[in-house]
């Protein structure tokens, strides 16, 4: 695999072809905030928190670092006024759903996000997709998935599969940044009368 030289925040970084900007940055010890990224999972590009400025051949564009492939002579800026504005807005939009989420508190402070900028929303799922993707890609159980689209999108357990798989597994629980997952699971179990085994667990 060929080596690629790029610049991140003024530092020269060595990367291999096929890597993403996020991977290259992490290897070089440069921090870029993420929410929906997980090293065991395929890059998702959903939260957009990892948005960075990428300049190539004189053109600057904004890209998601977790998905953008490294290129020779790429100049990356992980912080700028624009990048910070975008990250702050993303955090504020997410805090309308989960203002107390642990994962968001430090970031909110760093970027000056106002947790009350937007009216509170009913659901505290922030759609990072970690639970769905982990269950599909790592456990291959497909016990939880997305349903619907847009603002009506939700995570939803498949009751029959959840009854068989989830209690013994629960590996996705620590991944959830807001505990919306645990809430969805508990609700599924509660309603899962016809699939519950007769003996106690």
């Amino acid at each position, binding site marked *: 695999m060929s080596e690629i030289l790029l610049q991140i925040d003024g530092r020269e970084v060595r990367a291999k072809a096929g890597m993403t900007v996020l991977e290259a940055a992490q290897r070089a010890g440069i921090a870029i905030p993420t929410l929906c990224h997980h090293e065991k999972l395929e890059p998702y590009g959903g939260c957009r928190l990892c948005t960075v400025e990428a300049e190539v051949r004189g053109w600057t564009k904004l890209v998601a670092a977790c998905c953008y492939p490294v290129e020779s002579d790429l100049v990356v800026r992980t912080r700028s006024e624009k990048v910070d*504005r975008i990250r702050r*807005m993303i955090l504020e939009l997410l805090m309308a759903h989960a203002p107390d989420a642990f994962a968001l508190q430090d970031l909110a402070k760093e970027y000056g996000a106002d947790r009350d900028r937007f009216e509170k929303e009913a659901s505290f799922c922030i759609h990072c997709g970690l639970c769905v993707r982990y269950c599909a890609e790592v456990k291959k159980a497909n016990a939880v998935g997305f349903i619907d689209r847009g603002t009506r999108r939700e995570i939803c357990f498949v009751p029959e599969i959840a009854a068989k798989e989830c209690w013994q597994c629960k590996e996705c629980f620590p991944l959830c940044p807001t505990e919306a997952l645990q809430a969805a699971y508990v609700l599924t179990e509660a309603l899962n009368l016809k699939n519950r085994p007769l003996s106690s667990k």
Partner: protein
Amino acid sequence: MPRINSPEDLEKVRQEILAARDPGRPCISICAGTGCLASGAGEVIAAFKAEIEKQDLQAEVNTRETGCPGFCERGPVVVIYPEEICYLQVRPEDVPEIVSAVKEKKVVERLVYVDPATGEKAILEADIPFYKHQVRNLIGSNIRIDPKRIEDYLAIGGYSALARVLFRMSAGEVLSEVKKSNLRGRGGGGFPTGRKWEESRNAPDPIKYVIVNADEGDPGAFMDRALLEGNPHSTLEGLTIGAYAVGAREGYIYVRQEYPLAVENVIIAIKQAEERGLLGKDILGSGFDFTVKVHKGAGAFVCGESSALMTALEGRAGEPRPKYIHTAVKGVWDHPSVLNNVETWANVPLIINKGAGWFMQFGTERSKGTKIFSLVGKITNTGLVEVPMGIALRDVIYKIGGGIPGGKRFKAVQTGGPSGGCIPESLLDLEVGFDELSRAGSMMGSGGMIVMDEDTCMVDVARYFLNFLTDESCGKCVPCREGIRQMLKLLDNIVKGKGKEGDIELLEALSETAIDASLCALGKTAPNPFLSTLKYFREEYEAHIRQKRCPALSCKELIAYHIEPEKCRACMICAKQCPVNAIAGGKNLIHVIDQEKCTKCGTCFEVCPARFGAVRKLSGEPVPAPIPEDARAVSRKGKET
């Protein structure tokens, strides 16, 4: 039907078809596109068939059910060949007279086009001003062919471009010609087609795909429907030529399921082309194999986006993917995939047959060729218009479109669908082209042109599009799913009179995030309708927020209907038609609307006789108190009671 096994064979078959047709024999062509069918063309077609049988003319007169010629406002459309006499708004009752006129070589004067301004009649299709100012390279063929009969397409020269490509041009030469023509994608992106093909061709992967994007999700746009319904072979031929140039062996046609007739006709076309050896294995005996599958959409606007469409082709929910690596290199199943719009593909056979030079004589420096637009909304001549790029917007709207009906004033024309913006009157001399429209804050998009008049509220237009996009967003990324939803909330409040200072600034901040950080073009372009209406109609936003007033008198929560006592003649028409019985009044008693009961449906406003014009719409001002009951007697001049 026998297979055609060589270009020579093709020409032979073509000559045979033409020889069997007498050009002098009358042919009654009736548009059987979805629009005319909805206007009753089905009954008209049946009436023609019955009448011809009744008058025993089967041996002398043909009928042909054709594709959409675009003059949808005046459908059902009928054209009589060989003279090309055009009859409009034909009803079954008119049919016997038309058939007799055809027999006697006469014209039914009352059914031809009459210019509403000059009163001049236009008997021939080509003389009708709507058609005359167009350059109908693509859509002009529709009225001449029955899309369900491949012979009709062969009769007008179809598949000769494919024959030339397969036997007399190398893939590289085809690519060169398309690049030279400067054909840019007609689906909205305007990306140079030749460059896209080249990128796929150069990708090292041996498996490649070519795809027709017939999702046409922009509301108000139906050009692709007309092309695919009316002349499916032109798209098929273009697609096959593209496959040859790129090195693909399989193709897909992604058609929205809301177009059942287009789906039906393209499936028939594929079957007939395969039977004749013009598609499938060993096309025309050239050794080139290419098969096409039809894939129906299932009701998602986002699937018009190229990466979402490809995800849908893979049998998944249509969520877009990052396109940092072009889909031309990594597309369906990660193979190089060339996705182009229906109209883009349909241009290809013309470019091959007539040459890139011919194509480039139309259009501007950077926008070559013609473009089909769907001219709809507050416009006299609603329909599909094909014009050379570079034509002034003003000419499209007034010369071809016939201007605004009802004596109303033009306000704006929206282009580019939910990703586009509004062009106000001050910019009507704009030349229509990709870059010109982008510079004005809009975009070409797929070709929808929605005309709006003085009664259209521009703030509501922005709200409408954001409502649409909120519903259609896939929901994967935060800037779109959350950002656009917040924009919609703000606009919903503004049109209801609940806007506050600071709303515009917040909308602008949300716009920036969506434009810069969204995953796909749906999110990135979602703020455009808001930003362009804000740019050109800021005073409307400020009126809604600061004065709780809708200048266009359109937003329900901000208007009130009021019957002016001096003008009311107590005719009872509005009182009887009010669906909620909100109008008090009697035979000689001035009518008064109960504002508590009124649902603002506007019926009273519409039905009050023009000579009285007593109903007024108010906004941003208090409704005058109803005059006391004992003062409501109508004073009738000249009739003292």
